[in-house]
């Protein structure tokens, strides 16, 4: 027997049409997606795709997302892959469903299928007299079959819903304060839980007076299991007070960290590493033209996801059955992990997605789900809501990894780049729960490592380049370099817990590439825009660079008056996804700040133009914040970033004008838009700073101290 045919995107692993949609008696359609809303608008985009292929109005579509009992397993909602993987599956599933319904209608109406049209779910011939709606047909039976992907989705020229800026389905509730978040869910008899985390990663609990905590008002349970401590109380403020009391009643023995924030980059470069050659291309005839060579080293600190709402989950444990509501980005993967920790078969665990605060990658969402289960287990049958406190999130979330990137290049006498090399050092970028089989019991969930009978940490992973890469994401340049060598050095030791943060390695790699290109342009006496175009062959890349420059009013060779500056940077995300170029304008009084950001974006076919613009605006502002302000602080004892005072982010008065110009290419594949801005924005700010002051800062963030030191 031959292997089943490969189907598009996540249809391949979820092959039954009935997994994707269902027709309801009230003339609506429930559409199931494994991709979840994390503030990026993807559930609305999926609804648009389904409505488009089915020829129904958007109002008839009801979305169900991320539920182990109801939806397809589409892996994590991450990596800007949702539109690509989930959207293509949705298109083919809905196109085929429509086709099957049309075939059935054709025989019932005695009209050839190619003479039928569908209007808001009503199928009719040209006479409009003989007609049938989807809901009058035996849809359940028709959809109970394996998808073939043999039916081509609509060509983009016929799209009327896809490509429009449909309003986000979730925004009305969010603008009116209507309960919508996992934090807002309430079940009858619900109790409130809080956890007490150790003071540092490897701390051991040496003494704990649980009785002192149990006596407090409202306390229902105090759980101590190895180094895991949690409290459950009737009222939320009682749980918070019990947490404080439990923290005081706990005595820990700490183990020092191997590095502090100031020394982390040297530490990374001093380790034994696993090395991977990412790119090697040589043309000795070209490199022989080299007359001048250059080297630089760039660094990025650990950056926190710093979700505005600390992670939260609701759990109920009853007769060996577990039910969890979570803002995890991968409900099936979380279930798999929890099953291993709890020693339960996965089918005993139900996991429902409910929206959380924006996560921008792997934050505390999965961890708090296990916390809630462990506390719910102590009060069998009663639901327990656990929300992390601010310091839990800051100190324990898995940060975006610190990285070092070294670059080397050579110019020929005409100022062309004839040699290019890049080396990077980093931990792996994924500590997410996943379902990949292992030889022994492992978990990616914090509490599992702290239990009396601990579960081993799942080994840190790093997405392979075939999947867009992790640490080495965007380490190859999109520019045409006849000689290019890229090596990734993977550090196994993890001084701090890390995982996926928006863009993964692309942030540091693009910061380095696009800063270095600027340095080379300066050395070559070239304009940064012209210099980039000179080395760029990809027409879509050239188009975004040209559009950003034009919209920003870029003037080649314009000198700075020393009080302001402008810089440009570009990247094609994952070297195969969307294109983004951005021009950043800065001011310097009283401190470095961004006054204007002008971006040009090409993500192929735009499913929801306003959604793409919204994501790009957000990515730009978040990256300005990273670049100017952000770094997780830690000494040799522990993480000391605990509050927003320790970790300032960009505030409203500091927000610049942001303009996003979209190049829509309806005939190109649609690509995700969430993560493209990070690297280009960081580099464009550093380039603008150089334009203004003539100093090159290669270490993020670009603080006043670093600028002052560079000027001295």
């Amino acid at each position, binding site marked *: 027997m031959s292997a089943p045919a490969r189907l598009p995107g996540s249809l391949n692993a979820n092959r039954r049409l009935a997994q994707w949609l269902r027709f309801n008696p009230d003339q609506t359609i429930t559409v199931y997606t494994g991709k979840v809303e994390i503030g990026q608008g993807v559930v609305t985009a999926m609804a648009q795709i389904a409505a488009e292929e089915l020829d129904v109005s958007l109002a008839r579509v009801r979305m169900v997302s991320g539920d182990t009992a109801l939806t397809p397993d589409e892996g994590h909602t991450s990596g800007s892959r949702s539109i690509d993987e989930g959207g293509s599956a949705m298109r083919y599933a809905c196109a085929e469903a429509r086709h099957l319904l049309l075939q059935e209608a054709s025989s019932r109406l005695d009209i050839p299928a190619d003479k039928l049209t569908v209007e808001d779910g009503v199928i009719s011939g040209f006479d409009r007299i003989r007609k049938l709606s989807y809901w009058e047909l035996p849809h359940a039976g028709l959809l109970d079959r394996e998808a073939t992907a043999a039916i081509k989705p609509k060509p983009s020229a016929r799209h009327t819903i896809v490509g429009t800026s449909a309003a*986000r389905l979730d925004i009305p509730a969010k603008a009116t*304060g209507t309960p919508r978040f996992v934090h807002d869910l309430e079940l009858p008899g619900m109790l409130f839980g809080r956890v007490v985390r150790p003071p540092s990663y490897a701390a051991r609990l040496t003494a704990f007076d649980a009785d002192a905590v149990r006596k407090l008002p409202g306390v229902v349970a105090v759980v101590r299991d190895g180094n895991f401590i949690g409290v459950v109380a009737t009222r939320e403020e009682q749980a918070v007070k019990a947490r404080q009391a439990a923290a005081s009643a706990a005595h820990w023995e700490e183990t020092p960290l191997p590095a502090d924030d100031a020394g982390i980059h040297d530490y990374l470069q001093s380790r034994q590493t696993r090395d991977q050659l990412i790119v090697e291309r040589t043309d000795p005839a070209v490199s022989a033209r080299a007359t001048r060579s250059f080297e630089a080293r760039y660094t990025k600190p650990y950056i926190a996801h710093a979700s505005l709402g*600390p992670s939260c989950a609701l759990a109920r444990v009853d007769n060996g059955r577990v039910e969890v509501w979570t803002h995890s980005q991968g409900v099936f993967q979380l279930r798999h992990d929890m099953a291993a920790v709890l020693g339960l078969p996965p089918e005993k665990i139900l996991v429902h997605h409910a929206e959380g605060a924006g996560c921008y990658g792997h934050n505390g969402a999965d961890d708090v789900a296990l916390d809630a289960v462990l506390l719910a287990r102590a009060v069998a049958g009663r639901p327990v809501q656990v929300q992390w406190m601010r310091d839990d999130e800051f100190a324990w979330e898995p940060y975006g990894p610190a990285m070092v990137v070294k670059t080397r290049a050579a110019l020929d006498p005409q100022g062309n780049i004839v040699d290019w090399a890049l080396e990077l050092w980093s931990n792996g970028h994924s500590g997410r729960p996943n379902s990949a089989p292992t030889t022994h019991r492992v978990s990616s969930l914090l509490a599992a490592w702290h239990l009396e009978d601990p579960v081993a940490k799942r080994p840190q992973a790093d997405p392979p380049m075939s999947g867009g890469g992790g640490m080495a994401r965007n380490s190859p340049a999109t520019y045409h370099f006849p000689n290019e060598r890229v090596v990734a050095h993977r550090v196994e030791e993890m001084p701090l817990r890390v995982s996926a943060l928006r863009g993964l390695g692309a942030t540091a790699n693009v910061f380095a590439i696009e800063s270095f290109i600027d340095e080379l342009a300066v050395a070559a006496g070239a304009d940064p825009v012209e210099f980039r175009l000179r080395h760029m062959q990809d027409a879509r890349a050239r188009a975004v660079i040209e559009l950003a420059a034009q919209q920003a009013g870029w003037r080649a060779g314009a000198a700075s008056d020393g009080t302001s500056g402008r810089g440009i940077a570009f990247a094609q995300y994952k070297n195969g996804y969307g294109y983004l170029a951005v021009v950043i304008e800065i001011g310097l009084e009283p401190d470095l700040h961004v006054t204007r950001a002008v971006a040009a974006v090409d993500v192929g076919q735009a499913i929801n133009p306003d959604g793409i613009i919204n994501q790009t605006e957000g990515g730009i502002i978040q990256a300005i914040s990273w670049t100017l302000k952000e770094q997780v602080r830690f000494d040799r004892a522990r993480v000391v970033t605990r509050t927003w005072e320790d970790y300032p982010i960009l505030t409203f008065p500091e927000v610049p004008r942001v303009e996003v110009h979209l190049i829509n290419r309806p005939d190109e594949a649609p690509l995700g838009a969430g993560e493209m801005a990070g690297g280009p924005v960081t580099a464009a700010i550093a380039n603008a700073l150089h334009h203004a002051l003539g100093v090159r800062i290669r270490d993020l963030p670009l603080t006043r101290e670093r600028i002052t030191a560079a000027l001295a």
Partner: protein
Amino acid sequence: MPDPVTLNVNGAQHTVRAEPDTPLLYVLRNDLKLKGAKFGCGLGQCGACMVLIDGHNVMSCDTPLWAAAGKAITTIEALGSLDAPGVLQRAFIAEQAAQCGYCVSGVVMTAAALLARNPDPSETEIKEALARNLCRCGTHVRLIRAIQRAARELRA
């Protein structure tokens, strides 16, 4: 059992039994089931829990119950509902001014206080008014546009 405390929330009197040092936020969310205000930090640093007290925007996460008693408390729920959103809320929907939306109700409440005292704020005044509201998604430019739209509609 703590003594009952009477709160005036959105124009109605409510009696709750909670310790006087209980953060107002928890009473609003858990006793009164007003889930619009959110817990963000518990330290008055992020604005996710913003409500109005006697017309001033105040962070409810570090406002103790005793300090709120006897005052007029307004939450986002008083401004409109999903079925009948108020002017400010409609403006946020029209501008699609949210990504995750966790900061939004706090921003709406700060805006409500601002527009009550200044019906025609400049962009700079809006930004300054929102200096204590954090947004992590980077939705700032839309949030500002939504407030400008609401201000226009309220003046019209």
